[in-house]
């Protein structure tokens, strides 16, 4: 509680400062202050014992092996971790520690103030090409518990460095799927396959599909080239994030999103 007040006071002070320097500074992005250091989420060993700890651990299992622990609500074999790397901990892949403190928030997509539960439902319906999990069910509760635990110690209402996906500056040349295909063949196909189908080890997905029937659908965040380009820039090729030039990230994103994938599901 005290921590929250302190954070609020700090933000207030920053806002005052911004106001003093003139309204030009107060863009939509700057409304929430950006912190400068990367937040480090608590180590896994610190998940508490007991009922609440069990809920957190169950959330982690759903997150890393979604088809196994929440298969009723998924329409593909991706897991949450396919896009939110290192079990939802890695900066610049919309980590859970960044998410918890940002909700409830306004989203343009549906012109509503969304709760974290509703945001997670969104990833189930679009990114996982599945169906909305009940807001009060154990699946969502566990995921929220996992997210809450991971954000322990993070200041509230602040745009944490490394949270969400990255927005790259507009590219010099308009993103081009044809140039993107060359990047894909040279840098991505080794793992994701020439046909975008991904690769399997002993029946489990090792490298997830990036298009085709097993991929995210046309309602997903990654179906926006800008969002996908930011993710690719910071995270792909796996273990070589930030090595791809921006233009290539845009182009390969345009290529991936030009390929066939499941349609956007009809509104609820």
């Amino acid at each position: 509680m005290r921590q929250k007040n302190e954070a609020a006071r700090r933000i207030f002070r920053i806002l005052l400062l911004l106001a003093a320097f003139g309204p030009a500074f107060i863009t939509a992005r700057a409304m929430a202050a950006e912190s400068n250091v990367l937040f480090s989420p608590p180590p896994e060993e610190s998940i508490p014992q007991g009922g609440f700890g069990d809920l957190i651990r169950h959330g982690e299992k759903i997150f890393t092996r979604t088809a196994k622990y929440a298969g009723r609500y998924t329409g593909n074999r991706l897991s949450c971790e396919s896009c939110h790397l290192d079990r939802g901990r890695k900066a610049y892949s919309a980590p859970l520690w960044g998410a918890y403190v940002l909700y409830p928030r306004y989203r343009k997509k549906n012109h509503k103030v969304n709760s974290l539960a509703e945001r997670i439902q969104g990833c189930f319906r679009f990114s996982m090409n599945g169906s909305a999990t009940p807001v009060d069910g154990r699946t969502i509760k566990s995921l929220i518990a996992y997210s809450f635990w991971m954000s322990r110690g993070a200041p509230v209402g602040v745009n944490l460095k490394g949270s969400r996906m990255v927005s790259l500056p507009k590219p010099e040349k308009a993103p081009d799927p044809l140039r993107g295909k060359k990047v894909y063949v040279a840098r991505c196909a080794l793992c994701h396959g020439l046909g975008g189908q991904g690769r399997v080890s002993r029946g489990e997905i090792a490298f997830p599909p990036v298009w085709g029937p097993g991929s995210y659908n046309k309602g997903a965040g990654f179906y926006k080239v800008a969002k996908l380009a930011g993710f690719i820039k910071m995270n792909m090729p796996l273990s070589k994030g930030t090595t791809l030039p921006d233009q290539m990230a845009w182009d390969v994103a345009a290529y991936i999103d030009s390929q066939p994938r499941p349609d956007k599901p009809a509104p609820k």
Partner: protein
Amino acid sequence: MRIAIVGPVLCSLLFSFVSIPLPARAESLMDWGKHIAEAGNGDPGNTACMECHRLKGGGMPSIGSPRIAGQTRQYIAREIREVQKGKRYGPVMAGVVENLSEHDIDAVALYYSRARTPKARETEPPSSARVALGKKIAHRGIWKKNIPACVQCHGVNGSGVPPLFPYIAGQNRTYLMRQLIAYAFLERKDDPQGLMRGIARRLSAGERKAVAEYFSSLNPPQANGR
């Protein structure tokens, strides 16, 4: 005598039922591959693979010669070619595979990709502390240093992701250590996009030892039979 004839006939009969029938040439490719493994390709000075990898591909932990049984055909062939080109670190292998033709490589790769054999016995028992650390790195990675979990690229428990990500589970420790060092110090340069060089370089000496001990403590995939 009869068994000698009936055996292969039964085998090929079975084969034609359980899988796509192989072109006739493949059978002889298998035979030629086995011949190279057993006796070399006949060129003067060519050493039989079995001298170091054993006939069934189990390798020799005592000299750090790798297990190759059941690695994919593409991976085995690729590594031999990279040794020939000098990109793959291969101080021992270089002289041996120098005069293998494309056809020889195809044949011996096919043969060893189908070979099955139990794990060769390690020279020393592993340290449990190192195995525990290795296990953690293998399954969680060290993301602070941008190292993903090894199993993300080497498949479930290190059993490989066909065709080009080799299995490392059940591989011998000396060999694993040597490769990690060779990548880290940029002597082995055949890894696509430098993926393994980057990772091995970011591991500390102690961490390399830990992962080598962990993966060598596991059982290899397809150790016996199919």
